[in-house]
């Protein structure tokens, strides 16, 4: 039976069901136990599963991830949390030098089935160091899978898939979607496969490729533009690594125009890679330039309201992108 849940509730339920289903699963991170998480994502899990499976850790992201990597080598299924994507940097050593390469450097002798949950993204004027959306850093590293859902349904199903996946998976949760993304979520456990993108809105005139919080924004922009005669298709990537080239190229071949929308910075963001793939594999199908609407190339989101507002990627910027592309 489905009920309406927020993304927070959906993730909490996925964790709880996976921990019930498989006693190798345990969670660890800063403030996830006694306090139930900064955003209450892990609320109630300490009471339900006890200290052995819900570990409040020292304030040290490196060992949070390393402890998970080592435990996964013992056959366990750790789900570490990085409280804010901004603070993943001390753990990058472990993620890139250990997790992504462990299987490769041992020729399959060791595996690293961990799922790193990471809260990311702009929202609520959180300033320079509680707002970054840096998932693309990890897309660059083969050996890792990178996932970012935008609906409560996908959040539960993708997280279950991630935990059951034999590879290291980075599961990015956008904080602006935590309470905003509400939807029907089945009570029973289910999975949404890692890999496939989702066509969220069918359209004829152009394709918007997007992910994360930019998905509802892009859908809003597409709805507004349809009233003005431009029919945009919206494809949500959902899995950023490995990319679902097939769905991307299918949509490009259908509409012949591409707008890429992401919150991450423009330079070397995921849009650059997606754009290159399209130009390599579907150049003949394009009727216009591949355009990008992205976060600005500034170091991080400044705190003061006007600066924060100037930074935001909002519906109006996406609409401007659609209009520019539609003119070709």
């Amino acid at each position, binding site marked *: 039976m489905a009920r309406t849940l927020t993304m927070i509730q959906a993730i909490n339920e996925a964790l709880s069901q996976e921990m019930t289903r498989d006693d190798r699963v345990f969670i660890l991170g800063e403030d996830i136990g006694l306090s139930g998480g900064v955003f209450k994502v892990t609320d109630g899990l300490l009471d339900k599963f006890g200290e052995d499976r819900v570990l409040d850790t020292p304030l040290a992201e490196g060992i949070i991830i390393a402890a998970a990597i*080592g435990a996964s080598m013992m056959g366990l299924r750790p789900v570490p949390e990085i409280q804010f994507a901004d603070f993943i940097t001390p753990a990058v050593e472990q993620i890139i030098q250990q997790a992504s390469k462990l299987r490769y450097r041992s020729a399959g002798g060791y595996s690293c089935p961990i799922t790193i949950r990471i809260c990311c993204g702009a929202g609520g004027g959180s300033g320079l160091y509680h707002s970054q959306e840096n998932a693309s850093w990890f897309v660059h590293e083969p050996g890792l899978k990178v996932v970012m859902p935008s609906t409560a349904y996908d959040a539960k199903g993708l997280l279950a898939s991630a935990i059951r996946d034999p590879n290291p998976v980075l599961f990015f949760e956008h904080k602006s979607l935590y309470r905003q993304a509400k939807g029907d979520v089945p009570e029973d456990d289910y999975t949404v496969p890692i890999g496939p993108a989702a066509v969220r809105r069918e359209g004829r005139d152009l394709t918007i490729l997007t992910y994360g919080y930019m998905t509802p924004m892009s859908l809003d922009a597409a709805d507004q533009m349809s009233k003005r005669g431009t029919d945009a298709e919206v494809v949500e990537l959902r899995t950023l690594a490995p990319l679902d080239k097939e769905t991307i190229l299918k949509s490009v071949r259908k509409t012949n125009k591409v707008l890429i929308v992401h919150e991450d910075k423009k330079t070397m963001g995921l849009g650059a890679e997606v754009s290159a793939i399209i130009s390599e594999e579907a150049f003949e199908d394009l009727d216009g330039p591949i355009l990008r609407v992205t976060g600005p190339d500034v170091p991080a989101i400044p705190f003061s309201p006007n600066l924060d507002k100037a930074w935001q990627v909002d519906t109006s910027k996406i609409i401007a992108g659609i209009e520019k592309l539609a003119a070709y």
Partner: protein
Amino acid sequence: MASKTNRAVMEPETERASHSPDLLLGLYRMLVKCRMCDEKARILFRQGKYKGNFYSGVGQEAAEVGTAYTLRKGDWIAPSHRDWTANIIKGAPLKYCFAQLFAKTTSPDRGRSSPAHMGFPELHVITPASSIAGQLNVGTGVALGIKKLHQDSVVVAYCGDGATSFGGFHEACNFAGVHRLPIIYVVQNNLWAESVPLRLQTALTNLSDRAKAYGFPGYPLDGNDVLAVYDAAQTAIARARAGEGPTLLECKTYRWYGHSEIDPAKYRVKEEVEQWKKRDPVATFEKKLMDRKLLSEESKKEIVAETTKEINEAVEFADQSPYPDGSELWDNIWA
């Protein structure tokens, strides 16, 4: 604790009942085997039999053998770049160890990692990254797994003096202290982190003092005395198996050669090297066994001959093994 004798082990003056002749000879055989394999690896590199580099542990054998000799099959070793011989002590057949140097398909990682960065999954030796102290962090995670699975295995994690300056060392030790994990951190303090002397690495006299900050015991040891190391390791391993938590063993020792085979180590004075060579961990133990009539010139020759034969066969095996095909580039990225 800051004594210069470096012998903070329990009952240092009395011979332990557990030092049976079999154990003493076993330790000796392993010391010889490690020394001979390491020297052979150096020669093979100089002969151009393999590329890359080799990080010799000659001079540090007592620290490795003393800590890893009695580990069980289920126990884990987290080696660094200088601990190629840890695989040998854990029981990896020599042919695979030399195949590792040669980057052949018969190496445990099918030629993926650089020569001395060897792991052996079957025997729980973790394939190391080159990141300094990384093996301490991952090894600590394995110890967490052991605890969660209620096993009685232990992890022995190796690093040099340089690694103790790295943040990862602190994070690993702190976490292991909090959770009383079954891990033994073995710091092989050879006085030089590549070319940086210990005085520029730390203000401490004994790196083992760091353990106090993490709430578990740390001991400074004569890392060239295999029995001193062995005794301390036995205590540490027993403590870990009993669920009483980690121990830090600082083995004060010396690497005879450069950081790697391409490092002539001109930053060290000759007298220092010569002085440490006089404290050769293999020769001093050998003399001890001969004095006790446990070893003769004849039996020594036999051990050397046997080991030489084993090494030659292993090198031959590695030499004859094929290189992996270029198509293997894409294997094992994802499960």
